[in-house]
């Protein structure tokens, strides 16, 4: 068996992993990136809408800055985020986007002059100033005060990923694809790399490094209905969990999106409803006004998703071989509008469902259903990106709970997080690798390799009647049915119990082919138990969290409870034979917040159990702000007094803007 040595090991080659790898390589470290697939095929490629950064270049984003981006992010998180991290993030985002521009990402640019736009379903004329011509432009997204989302037409993730991947090639980062990390090598609370399986030859190898950074993306595929790529199985979180030392944060925080198309789960952008598209039920009836008379289809993502499921539960769903759904009707916008403004949606409907959404009447209606979309939870880290418990293990991107999203992330903040975290955490990670050595004996490495080797043999020797595919499918159904958009105690309890049974059953299977290489069933057999552990963290975390916050919605506890639940769920798996994770909580300190908890600004009022410290801290914040304003201090100085934060490199420098006075 092979041992590969390097300075810095990055597991995962999406936007986050590649950007972190560039940071390490630039500091002179030999850096290896591992990925299940060629890195340019990572899930990051699928992001369409864009990346948030407060450049403030275009008319509708004029006056934007870090403070507004920070406030939107904290509110969006339903006060579940780490505000220090959110500050680090918003301050670095403009730098990230400018760096990407210099790496060749062809951001859509401001064009001077007038153009038509549809705002609130009304035609509006926008005039861009001459002096902003050629700067990076931005579009509107949910939950942001300014138009802050920068984009490359409808393929933002693709262009970003290619830009960063090419930069990694330029710096000679050692990228190795079709390599899957199976377990983390560690000793005395310190991480030294991973045991890795070559997905072509089936060979096991050890990758030993001074530091290891997990950037393996989200865990959407533990759900059946999801917009995520098929490789988003959460095995990165699972191998961290299986150390028994590293913890996962807020795994129950899972975001759902209202309008992926059925059955493929490919996303039909929020723009459909933004432009005036409507939802219809089995009778062709437009039902949203019955539930949300004011905002109708344009209520927030989580609200619309919940109403759709509620209506289906009321017997008004459309039956199909893939379960019940409702219809999205955009034909009412007219063929011209669709062919000009919703070209992509039209193409998806045509290719995947054989429907032309511009056709009037039921013929053009697209089947949609809310589905899992984003994993807010992940490997819990400090603001530097290092695990709180396992030294030398870092995490960034969707795989991590760093934690700037709390219980709900805003659209456009995720691809932004990937590169920003890659810059910040990548640098802290590189510093760690520069300052620390590999001190683990070869015998210990061999022990970890042997363990995985024995495990694969064990799987091939199982002789039971269960099917690993059936177990996996049952898990996915269960997560949709009982740990989905609506949650309550009894169902979550049932889910936890059945997931435990499924975990036991993963040892009662038979893998037909006994080949070590090119054996997809064997791969399922070792991945599914990992996925079940991740699913158990989600289900148990949700069961125990008796409140509603952000995307976590409990029908038996409708209020956000800042008295008892202003904390982060931490799950760990200290006993490898156990059937469920252990849960502890990490409190959020209101008295250190720059923005103490308050009303989110949407949804019903009065749904918060308030913490008395919120008012106390708010008074403090107001007092400091007033005093410093009177002294003529600027917003940066005031911010620093309220909640100081640090950044590596020169990232703390102020961001220049076209609108600067």
């Amino acid at each position: 068996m092979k041992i590969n040595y390097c300075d810095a090991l990055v597991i995962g080659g999406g936007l986050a992993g590649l950007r972190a790898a560039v940071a390490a390589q630039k500091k002179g470290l030999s850096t290896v990136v591992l990925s299940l697939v060629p890195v340019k095929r990572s899930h990051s490629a699928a992001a369409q809408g864009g990346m948030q950064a407060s450049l403030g270049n275009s008319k509708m984003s004029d006056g934007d800055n870090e403070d507004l981006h920070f406030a939107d992010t904290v509110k969006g998180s339903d006060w579940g985020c780490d505000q220090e991290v959110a500050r680090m993030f918003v301050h670095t985002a403009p730098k990230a986007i400018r760096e990407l521009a210099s790496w060749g990402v062809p951001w859509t640019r401001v064009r001077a002059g007038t153009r038509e736009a549809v705002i609130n379903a009304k035609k509006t004329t926008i005039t861009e100033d001459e002096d902003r011509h050629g700067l990076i432009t931005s579009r509107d997204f949910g939950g942001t005060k300014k138009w802050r989302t920068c984009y490359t037409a409808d393929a933002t993730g693709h262009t970003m990923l290619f830009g960063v991947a090419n930069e990694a090639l330029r710096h000679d980062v050692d990228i190795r694809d079709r390599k899957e990390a199976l377990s983390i090598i560690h000793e005395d609370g310190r991480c030294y790399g991973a045991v890795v399986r070559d997905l072509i030859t089936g060979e096991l190898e050890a990758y030993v490094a001074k530091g290891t950074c997990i950037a393996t993306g989200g865990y959407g595929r533990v759900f059946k209905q999801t917009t995520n790529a098929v490789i988003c199985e959460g095995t990165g979180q699972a191998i961290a969990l299986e150390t028994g030392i590293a913890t996962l944060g807020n795994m129950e925080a899972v975001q759902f999106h209202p309008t992926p198309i059925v059955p493929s789960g490919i996303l039909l952008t929020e723009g459909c409803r933004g432009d005036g598209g409507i939802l219809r039920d089995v009778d062709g009836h437009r039902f949203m006004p019955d539930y949300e008379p004011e905002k109708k289809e344009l209520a927030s993502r989580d609200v619309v998703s919940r109403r759709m499921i509620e209506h289906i539960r009321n017997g008004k769903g459309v039956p199909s071989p893939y379960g019940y759904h409702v219809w999205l009707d955009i034909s009412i916008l007219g063929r011209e509008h669709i062919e000009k403004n919703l070209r992509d949606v039209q193409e998806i409907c045509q290719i995947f469902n054989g429907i032309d959404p511009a056709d009037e009447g039921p013929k053009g209606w697209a089947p949609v259903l809310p589905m899992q979309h984003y994993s807010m939870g992940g490997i819990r880290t400090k603001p530097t990106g290092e695990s709180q418990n396992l030294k030398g293990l870092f995490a960034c991107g969707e795989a991590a709970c760093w934690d700037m999203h709390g219980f709900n992330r805003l659209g456009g903040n995720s691809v932004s997080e990937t590169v920003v975290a890659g810059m910040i955490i990548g640098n802290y990670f590189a510093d760690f690798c520069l300052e620390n050595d590999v001190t683990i004996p070869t015998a210990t490495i061999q022990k970890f390799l042997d363990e995985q080797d024995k495990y694969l043999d064990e799987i091939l020797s199982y002789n039971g009647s269960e099917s690993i595919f059936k177990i996996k499918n049952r898990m996915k159904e269960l997560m949709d049915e009982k740990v989905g958009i609506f949650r309550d105690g009894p169902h979550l309890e049932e889910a936890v119990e059945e997931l435990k049974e499924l975990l036991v059953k993963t040892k009662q299977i038979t893998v037909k082919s006994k080949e070590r290489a090119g054996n997809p069933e064997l791969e399922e057999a070792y991945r599914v138990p990992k996925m079940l552990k991740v699913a158990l963290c989600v289900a148990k975390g949700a069961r125990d969290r008796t409140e509603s916050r952000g995307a976590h919605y409990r029908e038996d506890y409708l209020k956000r409870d800042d008295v008892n639940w202003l904390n982060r769920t931490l799950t760990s798996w200290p006993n490898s034979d156990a059937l469920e994770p252990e849960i502890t909580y990490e409190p959020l300190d209101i008295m250190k917040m720059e923005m103490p908890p308050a009303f989110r600004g949407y949804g019903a009022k009065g749904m918060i159990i308030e913490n008395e410290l919120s008012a106390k801290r708010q008074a403090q914040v107001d007092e400091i702000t007033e005093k410093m304003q009177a002294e003529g201090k600027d917003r940066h100085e005031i911010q620093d007094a309220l909640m100081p934060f640090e950044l590596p490199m020169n990232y703390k420098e102020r961001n220049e803007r076209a609108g600067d006075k």
Partner: protein
Amino acid sequence: MSAQKGREITISVLKFNPRSKVSKPHFVDYKLEETPGMTLFIALNYIRENFDPDLSFDFVCRAGICGSCGMVVNGKPALACRTLIANYPEEKLTLMPMPAFELIKDLSVNTGKWMDKMSKRVESWIHSNEEVDISKMEERVDPDIADQTFELDRCIECGICVASCGTILMRPDFVGPVGLNRIARFEVDPHDNRTAEDFYELIGDDNGIFGCMSLMACEDHCPKHLPLQNKIAYLRRKLVSLR
């Protein structure tokens, strides 16, 4: 649930494991009932879960975005996740791995390895000597030039153009339509300082721009509808004028 019964279709797949001493290339037929909206992604997963757990194929995004799933469907290379079975009235689909790439197993080929080599060969990154201060305003780019760069940047490295290419059969080192498109992309990007001479150094030979026989299949099959022939012709004119 809908009671309507779909038609019975046959998916015929070339199976072969080049790493096994006993495996020989052979076709296996799987029969299944078509469901509405069924793509090859859905069908192949159904086959793996119900008939043949040993069948290898590659999907990632299953949405026509990532370029993982190129294979030869009834004689033509296509993205399998975008292939709707309803579009095949003949009720039988024959699937083979894409030629020109190293075979991993069954329908799975190593496009990643090929594309990596191509990317390094054409130095598929921005060449610039400027140190950019990212705290300062970004360089301005004309919106039309940004759009043009974007249009060429949309290539997903799926390899379908390569699998469609006649030149590749004769010249295994041909950089392929995808590589030439890359050059065209950096040629329009104002951030890249490379000159026509620099590009000539990279592709000014028969394994590069002068190898193309203009058979057009690359452009016909490209799922992103990139203007490959147009761009190749443009580059050839530009580079020919240098010597």
